[in-house]
């Protein structure tokens, strides 16, 4: 596979500014897409912007592999006073994830928007989608705690509007978007309050500088209050159980373009930021940090993994099943991180990438079929495999990967988690994983049974195969699920360097 050390994706002149271009490209494209004369043009702008951002992310990945960390000083004001972009192995992994999900979703959007959104809104939807991408990439790239809040809100405000656009197909999108807005804003405001406390204690907003100063302040109650606010705020954004109430609605009723992109990226970037704060910015040796990870993060993650898997088993609407499954998988990821070993973090981050790929495949397969069928409940998907075999097969591959069938990426991801848990001596984590995986099998089985083995009732509306423009990105994703299942050196390399960047030389 690719060795990132030798990767020179872009000419040096571009590579030097790649960290900034990665964030700015979708922003410029968002403005251009809003002004585009037709839906077609705005789609092309959206694809161009996303591809350019992904290209720049690759260029950054090469630089980070060679230098370890890429710092980009904006406007010639040196940090800690000036604002800097700071990308390490962890940032690169999430940036690659977000930008490639952006490319796939924008390719898919060419067909899906025509049926799901009124023609007059296409240019604005593309613009919002690109804004969302800007926010997420900026969040990953920035080295400034307050900047992270601004980027978080740039992406969130785009998302609220985009979820609400789903009202054309399902008016429940509106209250779902409203709830998401309320919860998201509370989360972001908590984060800002936390940053206020930390600024009061340290007098800096630069994350690296803050980390250095916090190392001497671990008894301060101001710091501990800041920690609590930051973690709860980001917990809401990351849909950490039991703060996940906004997620099922937002994922289920949004236009499929948005579900696809959100499922792969939104909670993942918040997990990234939370991990950065818990393990990197705050001195991890501090008692309150360790107490949080052991007594709050791990139990909540475990409860979430089991309870939400159980909820998915009993859901009736297929996209809600996938949404609850997403919350459960967030639990898996956090369980890995909560082991607080390099192996555990690497396994958790590997799972993060794997789950993004799995969910984007599933939501895209579903979206492609639902373009013609408009179905919601599981029963309405009966017999879809006969009418749309290509989409259904891709869905099955994604589902197998979600359940953790051997030879798929999902299997490797679970395997690595279990391995890391055993190495860390956390047997209870293995038990939780086993129970949650068993429940995953149940709901995956329910979905596949309806799609493949149930005959469509007479007179039921018939599905049509998704258009080629949808099938192409879908099968690339499904293929990757298998490819990485056989040869995981690429995601492994990314996850390992991310874990090292996060925990450094810690045990």
């Amino acid at each position, binding site marked *: 596979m690719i060795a990132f050390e030798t990767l020179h994706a872009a000419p040096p002149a571009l590579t030097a500014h790649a960290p900034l271009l990665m964030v700015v490209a979708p922003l410029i494209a968002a403005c251009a897409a809003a002004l585009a004369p037709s839906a077609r043009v705005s789609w092309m702008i959206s694809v161009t912007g996303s591809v350019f951002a992904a290209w720049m992310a690759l260029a950054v990945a090469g630089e980070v592999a060679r230098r370890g960390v890429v710092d980009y000083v904006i406007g010639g004001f040196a940090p800690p006073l000036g604002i800097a972009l700071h990308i390490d192995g962890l940032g690169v992994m999430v940036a690659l994830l977000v930008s490639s999900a952006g490319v796939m979703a924008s390719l898919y959007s060419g067909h899906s928007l025509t*049926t799901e959104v009124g023609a007059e809104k296409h240019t604005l939807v593309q613009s919002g989608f690109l804004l969302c991408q800007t926010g997420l990439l900026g969040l990953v790239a920035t080295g400034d705690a307050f900047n992270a809040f*601004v980027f978080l*809100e740039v992406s969130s405000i785009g998302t609220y509007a985009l979820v609400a656009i789903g009202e054309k197909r399902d*008016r*429940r999108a509106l*209250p779902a*978007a409203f709830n998401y807005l309320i919860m998201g*804003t*509370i989360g972001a405001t908590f984060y800002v309050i936390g940053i206020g406390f930390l600024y009061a204690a340290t007098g800096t907003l630069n994350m690296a500088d803050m980390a250095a100063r916090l190392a001497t302040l671990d008894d301060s109650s101001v710091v501990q209050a800041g920690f609590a606010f930051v973690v709860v705020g980001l917990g809401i954004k990351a849909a950490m159980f039991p703060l996940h109430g906004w997620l099922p609605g937002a994922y289920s009723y949004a236009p499929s373009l948005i579900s696809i992109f959100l499922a792969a990226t939104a909670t993942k970037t918040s997990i990234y930021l939370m991990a950065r704060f818990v393990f990197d910015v705050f001195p991890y040796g501090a008692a309150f940090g360790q107490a949080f990870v052991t007594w709050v993060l791990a139990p909540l993650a475990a409860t979430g993994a089991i309870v939400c898997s159980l909820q998915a088993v009993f859901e009736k609407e297929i996209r809600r099943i996938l949404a609850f499954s997403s919350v459960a998988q967030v639990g898996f990821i956090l369980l890995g991180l909560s082991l607080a070993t390099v192996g555990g973090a690497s396994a958790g981050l590997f799972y993060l990438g794997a789950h993004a790929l799995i969910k984007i495949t599933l939501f895209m397969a579903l979206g492609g079929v639902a*373009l013609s069928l408009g179905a919601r409940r599981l029963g309405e998907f009966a017999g879809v495999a006969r009418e749309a075999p290509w989409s259904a097969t891709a869905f099955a591959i994604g589902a197998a990967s979600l359940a953790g069938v051997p030879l798929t990426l999902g299997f490797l991801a679970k395997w690595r988690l279990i391995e890391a848990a055993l190495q860390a001596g956390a047997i209870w984590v293995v038990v939780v994983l086993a129970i949650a995986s068993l429940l995953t099998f149940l709901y995956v089985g329910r979905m596949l049974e309806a799609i493949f083995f149930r005959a469509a009732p007479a007179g039921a509306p018939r599905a049509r195969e998704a258009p080629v423009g949808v099938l192409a990105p879908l099968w690339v994703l499904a293929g990757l699920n298998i490819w990485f299942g056989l040869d995981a050196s690429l995601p492994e390399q990314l996850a390992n360097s991310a874990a090292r960047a996060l925990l450094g030389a810690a045990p």
Partner: protein
Amino acid sequence: MSFFLSHFNYIAVAILMMAGLFVLFSSGNLIKRMIGLAIFQTSTGLFYISLAKVFGGTAAIAVEPGSSEARELASRLDPAYVAQYGVDGVVYSNPLPHVLILTAIVVGVATLAVGLAIAVRVREAFGSVEADEIDVLSRVEATQPGPQA
């Protein structure tokens, strides 16, 4: 008692914050919930501005050292305090939190606008802005088949 007086701002912040959150969670009316959210966000503004205040500090606009203005500002404070914390003999308040909260206010206004716009659309689609009635209608919706393309 002196604790309450010296932390008066922060107590106000806490009260505003709790009031905002209470309205947010106790009210079923979407517009009232937006009002609660706005109060909650505004309390953050007060929090940041309180953080920025330096005792005896003036606005962060550079005063020429040695000018009559600088002397006048310094004369109100203990010289030892000015010598310890001042710049060129003048103590300034911290301007950074003001800038930060300006950004946060802009973000808050944008969120409020999007939220109210969604509330308007909810009213058009459901004929109500009460969360209970919307829930009932949503539950009916869940039993309907999806729209056909």
